[in-house]
Structures are given as structure tokens and as C-alpha cells.
């Protein structure tokens, strides 16, 4: 190897090492987890576009009837009343990563405000990104407490489970076998399961025979219920935790000719649920005031941007927001006594 070749080899090696160093030097690590403080809440909304006002709701399972009939209908009504543009985006199925992707893409379009369905704690990072981009951000349905969201409106799912548990105890006189079902793995539903079990475990004569995943599917809920009836003919009650649990459980119980003998409590109050309650197949519905989530959520966004109720000379500099931090919209308990009030004629 002559002198020139050696020189070229050395040069190439140095360039290669240099490139590696530059490459690693330009590697940007993510920020360490920060503790969320009240001071983080104050965001300056000076850059927000209030000329072409547009409020965007981002959820997952955007076509779910419960979301369409309650959350989205109220959000659209609010947009009409306030005469501002509202958009509803998100994946058609329950897909949290796809919801995150949608939020990320929407942030780039700088909407006036973001109303985000708190589907999972994993969306915290992208909420923080929206807040850092100066976009007023309100979370609804389930809270994302580890995020920097400006406000939250929703229901306490633990209370939903507790309400079902207390009613079930009354319906079966504190004894017998109970099963429950919903979408396993969802944070809010697991909270609901916990609330139910915390009540039931106080009654030693109640035996919990199983927790089942109905995958938010009526047919699956009906199939599971049939299996439960076959395995436990003496089952006393079944609790449902997603919108399709109730109709599915009711279908199987009806087909087995055990209407009224097996007590059913479930969530939501779609027309189908109300009719089943009226027919005596379901005994109680734990309803959420979902219209309030999105109506007031949107209003909070509007109030933040328009500084409707300034509390300090400059709320952002004071590290505050001028809207409530957490709103629990409460629950509806629908029973045969008051069901007529909820049926739309």
C-alpha cells in the first residue's frame, strides 16, 4: 500500500468517524417527564386564529351511535348556535394510536380549539404538544390527569360501577351469582369494574362468576350471556359496561325466557336501552350526561380564546386559565319509575 492510498484510507476513516459523531450529536432525546403544575396551565392564546374560528373535536370510534347521538350532536348544535365552524375527526374504529395520529395532524393546521375525547392516558403527550402549540385544549369523557389539558369535563367511571353495584345488590337482595362484561383493557371501563367489585365484595352471599370481554358487540354480548346462562342457570344478575352490552345481554335473557328473573343493569340510554327498560328486560340504566361534555367543553374553549371572564390582568402570565379545571357532569339513574321522561316521542 503506497503513501497516497494510506492517506486516502485515513481520510475516509476520519470522515466516517466525523459523520458518526455529527449524527449522534444531532440526536435529540425526548424531554424527561415533567411534573404538571398549575403554572403550566396558563397559555397565551394570542396566536390563536379567532377570525376563521374553527373548533375541532377528535375522538376514536367516531361512528359509534352513542358518540354520534350525544357528543357529536351537542357539539354541532353548539357550533350552529355560536355561528362558528366545528369539525369532528378521528378513526372509525376504537384505535387510540390512530386518534393520536389525527391529533398530531390537526395540530399542524392550527385550529382555534381542540376538544379531545380522553380515551387513554397514552394521549397525554399529544395533548401536551397541542398545549405547547398554544391551542386551547379541553378533554372530555375520561380525564387525562398526567397531561397539561386546560380543562376536563366528564363522568367518574368508578361511580358508574358503584351505581350499578348498589342497584344490583338491591335487585337481587344481596345474594346470588353476578357476572359483568364490557371492553376489557379500556382504562375508564376498568375503573367502572373496580367500582362494581368494591360494592359487591361487601356482600359475602354474592358470588362474582366472571368478567367478560364483549368487544362492544351486541352479538358477542348475547353469545357470552348464553354461555353464562348455560354454565350458571341460577345466575341472579348481569352488569354491562359498554353501549352494546345491555342490548346483547337483554337479547340472550329474553331468548332464554328469563325476562325479569335475571336482573340487568347497564350503561347508556339510547332509544334501544330505554325500550328494553320499559319492557322490563333491563332494570336500571346508568346514563352519562354526554351532551354536557361537548357543549360546555366547546364553550370553555370559546371562553378561553375570547377571554370571556378574565380573572387577572393577564391570565397567561398569572399561570391560570379562566375556565373550571375539572367538571364532573354527574350521572343519570334511569329506572322503570322515570324512564318515560327520557323516551322521546
Amino acid at each position, binding site marked *: 500500500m503506497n503513501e497516497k492510498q494510506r492517506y486516502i484510507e485515513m481520510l475516509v476513516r476520519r470522515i466516517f468517524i466525523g459523520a458518526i459523531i455529527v449524527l449522534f450529536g444531532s*440526536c435529540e432525546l425526548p424531554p424527561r417527564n415533567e411534573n404538571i403544575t398549575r403554572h403550566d396551565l396558563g397559555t397565551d392564546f394570542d396566536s390563536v386564529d379567532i377570525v376563521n374560528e374553527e373548533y375541532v373535536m377528535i375522538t376514536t370510534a367516531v361512528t359509534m351511535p352513542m358518540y354520534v347521538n350525544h357528543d357529536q350532536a351537542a357539539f354541532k348544535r353548539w357550533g350552529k348556535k355560536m355561528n362558528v365552524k366545528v369539525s369532528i375527526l378521528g378513526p372509525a374504529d376504537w384505535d387510540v394510536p390512530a386518534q393520536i395520529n389525527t391529533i398530531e395532524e390537526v395540530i399542524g*393546521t392550527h385550529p382555534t380549539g381542540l376538544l379531545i375525547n380522553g380515551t387513554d392516558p397514552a394521549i397525554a403527550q399529544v395533548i401536551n404538544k397541542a398545549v405547547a402549540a398554544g391551542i386551547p385544549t379541553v378533554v372530555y369523557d375520561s380525564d387525562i390527569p398526567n397531561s397539561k389539558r386546560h380543562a376536563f369535563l366528564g363522568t367518574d367511571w368508578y361511580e358508574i360501577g358503584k351505581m350499578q353495584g348498589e342497584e344490583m345488590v338491591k335487585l337481587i337482595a344481596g345474594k346470588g351469582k353476578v357476572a359483568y362484561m364490557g371492553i376489557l*383493557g379500556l382504562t375508564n371501563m376498568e375503573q367502572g369494574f373496580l367500582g362494581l367489585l368494591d360494592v359487591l365484595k361487601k356482600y359475602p352471599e354474592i358470588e362474582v362468576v366472571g368478567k367478560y370481554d364483549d368487544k362492544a358487540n351486541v352479538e358477542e354480548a348475547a353469545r357470552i350471556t348464553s354461555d353464562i346462562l348455560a354454565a350458571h342457570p341460577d345466575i341472579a344478575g348481569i352488569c354491562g359496561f359498554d353501549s352494546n352490552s345491555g342490548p346483547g345481554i337483554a337479547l340472550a335473557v329474553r331468548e332464554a325466557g328469563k325476562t325479569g328473573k335475571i336482573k340487568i343493569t347497564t350503561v347508556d340510554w339510547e332509544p334501544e336501552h330505554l325500550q328494553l327498560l320499559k319492557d322490563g328486560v333491563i332494570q336500571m340504566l346508568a346514563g352519562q350526561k354526554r351532551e354536557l361534555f361537548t357543549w360546555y367543553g366547546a364553550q370553555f374553549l370559546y371562553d378561553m380564546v375570547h377571554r370571556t371572564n378574565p380573572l387577572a390582568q393577564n391570565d397567561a402570565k398569572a399561570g391560570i386559565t379562566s375556565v373550571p379545571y375539572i367538571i364532573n357532569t354527574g350521572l343519570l339513574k334511569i329506572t322503570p319509575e322515570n324512564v318515560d321522561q327520557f323516551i322521546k316521542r
Partner: protein
Amino acid sequence: MIQKILEERVYSLGILLVITALITSAVFPGTFPTFENFSQILLNLSIDTIVAVGMMLLLISGAFDLSVGSIVAFTGCLTAYLMHFFNIPVPIALAAGLASAFLIGWVNGYLIAYQNINPMIQTLAMMGIVRGCALLVSGSGIQNLPYWFNAIGQSKLLGVQMPIWYMLATVFAFTFLFNKTIFFRRYYYIGGNEKAADLSGIQVKKMKMTGFIITAVLAGFAGILLSSRLGAALPTMGRGLELRVITAVILGGATLSGGFGKIPGALLGALFMGLISNIMVIARVSGYWQDIILGLILIGTLWVDKYLQKEYAGVV
């Protein structure tokens, strides 16, 4: 030249992508043609593309795997579970996650290749089993993962998010392997005519099993990457991913009968779907319409492609 373009889906899809991007840039000049938006599109499709590379390999060989979405969820959840509840160091947890994906791929591959179980039935069954395991492992999901685990998917290199680099590295590596190694080229022979491939001395069964293992390991890697990007492991991750990925790969030039397709096609197919999704978000097309539009585009693209091939290239 035109004939070459029409014969190769990679080229025709590439041109379609450029035309779509140019039109969208003209319609939404303020929001679409920005570095942030393009970077976001690539980031959003990076997980799907890594899985799509494996799926392309399988479709070239005439098979497919419906369990990839569940593998994405399971490996992410298992890795997170080991780190979160047993304080296992990040590299060991990663290795365990990938090993579990390897095992799932091996079971799929063995039963399909050596026991002649139909790939659709086998991987459909595995999809349910693995999804159930993900639920068992993670419950409602695992949060607060170690910082260095999150750094895998949340860091940036030269201002570009790491999952994009991993995606590009996977695509380049497999493109190289398919172009330059006899081993990977044999998948075309298997997909084209399995019996002839067997008679010519190719170890078809072994190759098919390897294909399922590679696909599962890529899905496992994608699952780890997704958990790292989210900073959380969710048992619902990857739901519907298998159909999305198969759509992207078919859009990218593969056929269900096997023997066709190129690795860059997987990237372009995923890119096209990602681009359409992004345009719909920017145009504020409601979520109700997104699946309908994507389905129509898939059918429309394939139909136009077939029509043009027939019309100009004499190829059906």
C-alpha cells in the same frame, strides 16, 4: 418507457403520489406542504410500513398473516410488563419481546408449512390467542415506562423522528436483501409456483416458516416501537392493522396469489394511504367518510391500473 411504468406498480404509484401531493399543495398551501406535515405523515405510517414489509414478503410467497396486529399489541405489552413490574433492564425486556414475536411466528410458520394448516385459519386463531394474551399481560394498559425505552421511539435524528429512520432502514435492508440475495429471491419462485419451486430443490417448507418468523419479528419490533412512541403499552394497539397493512401491500403491487410485489411497494402503498388520510384530516372530512373513501380509492386505483396495463402494455 410508458410500458415500463405501467408494468411496475412501484413507478405508477410513485407518480400518483407525486401528482396527489402537488394538487393538495395547491389546494392547501398553508397547511399541507410543510416539513412538519410531511414528517408527521411519515411518522404516522412508520409502524404500518415496518409490518407491511413483512407482509409483502409473505404475499410474495403466496401467504399472509392476520395475527400481525395482535403481535404488535402483545410484544409492546409484554416488554412494558417486564420493565414496569419486574424492573427488567430495557435491553433484556426488548430481547424478550422480540423473542416472543419470534416464537409466535415460529408456531404460525410450523403449523402452516409443516402441518398444512390454512394460513387464514391459523393466523386468525393466533390473532385471537395473542390479543387475549396482550389483555392478560397488560390489563387496561401500562403507563410510566422507563425513559430510555421511550427514547427509542421519541428521539429525533437530524430533526426527524426515530420511527421514520427505523422504517427507512427496514425498507432499505429488505430491498437490498430481495435484490441481492438468492435466499430472498426464492420467495418469488415459491409464490409463482410452489410445486415447481419444491421440485427445483428449494426448501419450501423451511422458507415459508422463515417468512412467518420474519413477519412476526418485524411486527414485534413495530409493537415495541409503538409502545415506545406512545410511552405506554395498550392491549388495543394494532386493532385492524392487519387489514390496513394488507391493503397497503396490495396497493403497492402484491397479489393474493403470490409471486409479485417489491419491498418499496410496501412503503409506497402505506405512504399513499397515509397521504390520503392526511388530506382528509386537513380537508376536515368527517371520520364517517374516511374508510369509505379509502376503500373506493383502493378499488379505483387497482381498476385503473389493470385497465391501463391492458390498454397500453398488453398485460392483464
